[in-house]
């Protein structure tokens, strides 16, 4: 398991260059620069999607799509903002498009994918409980919480990504944490993983 929470950009050594420098180098044709960026962000970006999409295969597909979008748009890249913010902005757009498509599909085909695949069966019960509890949060608050807790973005970066003032980000994050604390503190009705398996069988 490589699910550690750390800032990818902060973990690099001094001689590796910043994310932005690497992206500029890649836009000029440096293949090695992209390798380094991919190495830094493949796992965080996959985690970004994996925690928001129930299906692991779909999360991988969206991760791949995001990196391909970065490659396609590399010639237009301007290092005016952090690469990390830039990457997650792409990820959010792709995730939004995926959700719209899935919701549109669900209008005609029935239940959305999120219901068909309640959790990664076989995962730990804690993980399932977390996923369920986070899923009950307000959509915006959930997004802010995830960006803060797992992508380790600052309030300002979250505000930039979601087009919100910093104060709003802070208050919404506070509410999200309080709500999640309440949800996690509430006793579970039964074994969640077992319940998920029953749902899956039915």
């Amino acid at each position, binding site marked *: 398991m490589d*699910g550690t929470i750390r800032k990818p950009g902060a973990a690099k050594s001094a001689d590796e260059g910043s994310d932005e420098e690497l992206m500029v180098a890649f836009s000029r044709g440096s293949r090695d620069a992209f390798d380094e960026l991919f190495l830094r962000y493949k796992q965080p970006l996959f985690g970004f999607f994996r925690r928001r999409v129930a299906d692991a295969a779909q999360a991988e597909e969206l991760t791949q799509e995001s990196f391909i979008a970065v490659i396609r748009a590399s010639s237009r890249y301007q290092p005016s903002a952090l690469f990390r913010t830039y990457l997650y902005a792409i990820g959010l757009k792709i995730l939004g498009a995926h959700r719209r498509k*899935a919701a549109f599909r669900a209008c005609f085909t029935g239940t959305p994918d999120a219901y068909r695949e309640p959790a990664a069966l076989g995962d730990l019960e804690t993980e399932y409980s977390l996923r369920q509890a986070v899923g009950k949060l307000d959509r915006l608050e959930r997004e802010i919480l995830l960006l803060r807790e797992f992508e380790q973005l600052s309030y300002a970066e979250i505000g930039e990504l979601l087009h919100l003032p910093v104060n709003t980000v802070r208050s919404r994050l506070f509410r999200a944490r309080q709500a999640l604390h309440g949800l996690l503190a509430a006793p579970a009705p039964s074994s969640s993983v077992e319940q998920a398996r029953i749902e899956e069988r039915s």
Partner: protein
Amino acid sequence: MNTAAAHPVAPEEIMAFFDGELSAADAQAVAVHLDGCSACASLAAQFRGLSQSLAGWSVSPVSQKLEEAVNNFADKAVVKSEGRIPYAPFRFSIWNWRLWAFGGMSAVAGVLLLVCIVFLRIYYEDRPAQKPMAMAQLSRNNGEVAAGYPPPQPAKSQMYNSLAVPSRMTTRAPGGGGASTGAGFGVIGGMVGDLSGKTVAPMIARAASLTITVKDLTAARVSLDTMLARHHGYSAQLTVESAAHAPRSLTASLRIPASDLSNAIGDLKTLGRVEKESQSGEDVSQQHADLAERLKTARVTEERFRGILQQRTGNISDVLEVEESIARVRGEIESMEAEQTGLEHRVDFATVDLQINEEFKEEINSPLASFSPRLHNAFVAGYRNAAETVVGIFLFLVEYGLSILIWIAIVVFPTIFIWRRYEKARSTM
């Protein structure tokens, strides 16, 4: 965290402190407060515990397949374009809302195009039959026979039979001896000629238009009447307008004997300053000849029917049928005679469209004098408009309300249903 007095540090600030989002000074203040406040320290511990709980939500490593796919794409992009990576083509998916929107708009555009094509076809199906007639009429107006567009009436040579030519169409050439017999006509350059080489004077319906500005309209009106009497003309239509705060004007359609038209126009010009003048002439010779020929044929037909009625015997239904035919032909003959008379009248009497405008000098009048009645009228008009609007809306609803409800049931409710399902599905993701 009940009051600001008890806790000078807000809960959100404790959270920001925990997230490292405070300035050094603020962070120092919060740290000092946490040391002395168990409630706030408990809140900070809650945040810490929550983060630790969330840290348990691990994610499996990225698969080798993903790495290979991205690296392959990057290889191709870099090799092909040397760092300038082009956009990839559109990825087809039936669940793409843009595709549906584009498809829907294309379908609507296609339907509109189809409607246009059908409409144009229906419209132009009638045109070919009208075009030659219009061209033939145009050529007659120009006094020429247009090649390639023969007149639509059948048996042209018969139509120009001189037996049907009225007195106006008789030859004027010396030795013509009145109506020519058994010769066909041709119309060239405004002159009507028979095949024997004799020419007849064309029938020209003349028309003129005059716009004149006068100083005194009343005096001009008197002069106009005198002038009409002198030239043996008359006024077919005359209108005088005398609106408030506007110049008075007279519009008339005069009929003047064609032979006296030039003199009459000269007299009319003396009424005032001529603003506009135009004259025209329409050659109606061929039209008149056609009419005369059709009239002759109709009369012959009528005579035949009458002969049949007198000489033959048969049952009642046959007799009635012949009588009906006679009545129908008689009606046609009378109609054509009236048309012929009108045509001849147009030739005998030229039409002068006259407009006389009086020079206008606006007078200074206080608007307050007429304010009260205008206000009253405005109220009345406003009330009427409002009432008509209400009645119109009511009638519209009565007339189309049921249809609108049906369309709402057909379109709106399913749309709302789908939209709700869409939103519900989105909220669960």
